[in-house]
């Protein structure tokens, strides 16, 4: 088991280099060249901003030197200071030590995704199991259709419609932000409730997509598992149905789901740019959108590298969990 973890860790190293290469390549895409005509009044980037970029990333130096410099920065998590008017270090913008933990951007996004993940599991697993257990029943058909349609609808569209319905028309949930204006004057329990109320819609919308996908894959996976030999054996042995379904079938059917979850880990830390823009959530997605609009390159690159690295770690954890639950993988 430990050997497996070590192997996977080693396997991460080239991916890490790959990430640094990828981000480095993207930096090279920066518009404008030193030889742009100074009389060009509408370049995509002003010569002054280009000069700043060059100085910052050493774009005028040979490629190898640039890459080594970039690599040393990434390793030290030194992404420099933001180009925007507040000129704070990039890491501070993501993880601002001057505000309470729950307000820090990374934590905000992470919380939303974690809660939505839990919600997905709570809803998708029973739905998937039920649909697989009684294939082609009306429950199965209805959920299939709902899932199919839900998958096809643009998530931001659903978000808009729901916001219209629940926030404006019905007034059940607040419209935007993560806490109310008068948050500081609330009692501690009221504060937590306030935060939860604000998170309700974003979490719900982001969970919708996940529920659709996961329940579908689980259904397929369960169907396959339920028709396999060892289930027949289990039934033949006379085991109660619940044991057959939950202890044997489900455990095996969940394996591909773990892989799927591993693939959705990137979303945990990146934050959905669209949701955060629509709901006004001050998380990673909103930060990246603002940085992109302002061409705040240090922040953009910092976010890219950090999300990539966190994703790699997440994948590693998912792989280890997978290996733990499926001995066949370890033995390979």
């Amino acid at each position, binding site marked *: 088991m430990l050997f497996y973890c070590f192997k996977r860790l080693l396997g991460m190293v080239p991916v890490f280099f*790959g990430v640094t290469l990828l981000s480095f390549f993207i930096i090279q*895409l920066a518009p404008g060249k030193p030889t742009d005509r100074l009389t060009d009044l509408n370049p995509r980037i002003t010569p002054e901003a280009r000069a700043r970029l060059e100085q910052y990333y050493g774009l005028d130096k040979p490629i190898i030197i640039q890459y080594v410099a970039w690599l040393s920065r990434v390793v030290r998590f030194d992404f420099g200071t933001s180009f925007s008017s507040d000129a704070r270090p990039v890491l501070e913008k993501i993880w601002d030590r001057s505000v309470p933990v729950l307000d820090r951007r990374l934590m905000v996004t992470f919380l939303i995704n974690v809660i939505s993940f839990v919600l997905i599991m709570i809803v998708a697993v029973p739905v998937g199991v039920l649909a697989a257990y009684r294939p082609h029943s009306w429950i199965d058909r209805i959920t299939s259709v709902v899932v199919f349609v839900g998958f096809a609808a*643009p998530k931001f*569209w659903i978000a*808009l*419609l729901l916001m*219209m319905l629940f926030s404006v028309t019905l007034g059940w949930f607040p419209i935007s932000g993560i806490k109310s204006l008068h948050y500081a004057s609330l009692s501690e329990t009221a504060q937590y409730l306030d935060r939860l109320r604000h998170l309700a819609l974003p979490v719900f919308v982001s969970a919708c997509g996940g529920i659709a996908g996961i329940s579908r894959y689980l259904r397929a996976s369960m169907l396959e598992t339920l028709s396999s030999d060892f289930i027949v054996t289990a039934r033949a042995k006379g085991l109660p149905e619940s044991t057959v379904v939950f202890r044997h079938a489900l455990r095996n059917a969940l394996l591909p789901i773990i892989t799927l979850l591993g693939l959705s880990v990137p979303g945990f830390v*990146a934050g959905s740019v*669209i949701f955060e823009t629509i709901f006004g959530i001050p998380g990673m997605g909103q930060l990246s959108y603002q940085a992109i609009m302002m061409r705040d390159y240090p922040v953009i690159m910092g976010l890219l590298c950090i999300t990539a690295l966190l994703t790699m770690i997440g994948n590693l954890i998912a792989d280890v969990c997978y290996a733990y639950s499926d001995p066949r993988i370890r033995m390979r």
Partner: protein
Amino acid sequence: MNETIHMILRNRLAVAGGGIVLLLCSVALCAPILAPYDCNAIDVTAILLPPSVHHPCGTDELGRDVFSRMLFGARISLAVGFVAVGIATVLGVLVGALAGYYGRWIDSVLMRWVDTMLCVPDIFLILTVIAFIGEGIVNVMAVIGATSWMGVARLVRAEFLSLKEREFVLAARAAGAGDARIIFLHILPNALGPVFVSAILGVASAVLLESALSFLGLGVQPPDPSWGNILMEGKDNIEIAWWLSVFPGLAILVTVLGYNMLGEGLEDILQPRFKNRRY
């Protein structure tokens, strides 16, 4: 061939999906003929009118006919979808074929590259690249294509891994065929089934991505219409112009549904050979 067509027609999912796709493509092609108004024609006396006989989908903030704009938006969305998927497919096939055929260190390096690309969430990667190269429809096509090839690559690699030990390959090699010939003329045609399905599903995903980008203002630039664009206007006028939010959203929904149904239907037909999914 006949048998294939027969099989396809029996699968209801594929038929329904195929019908929708066909309808969409023809609508997009005939947009200039079908559109009752010039999609950019501003009419300040007709601002934000609800759907009516004159304007079946209402008008937008500048009095432009939403129906006409949606027809041209269909062109743009589908064009982005096809081109982006084309790029992604070509890239993915190349990478996957090389990795699957040659194996060993080439495979390792290429698959590590795929893993790297998968490490970054796709919308985020796309937005980052757009921040560097600028917005606009051509850039969007290129970027979506350059970030969606990984699934195809894995697929193709899996196919190649299983196909390269088959007799017909050995026979070709014995006959003196070079690597390139074997890859492109012998193995690839057999692997195309799943690639085709993946491409179809990829169009749906590209359409969704493009509409998301246009919604954020980073995709198709005004005044060119795109479904995502119109939705952006819908967001700003959500209380007084429901038609700006509903119709483009429905259009995206139907398009994606159509392509998904077609893709899934074809996938069912190609089973049990093919189990992998596009990501």
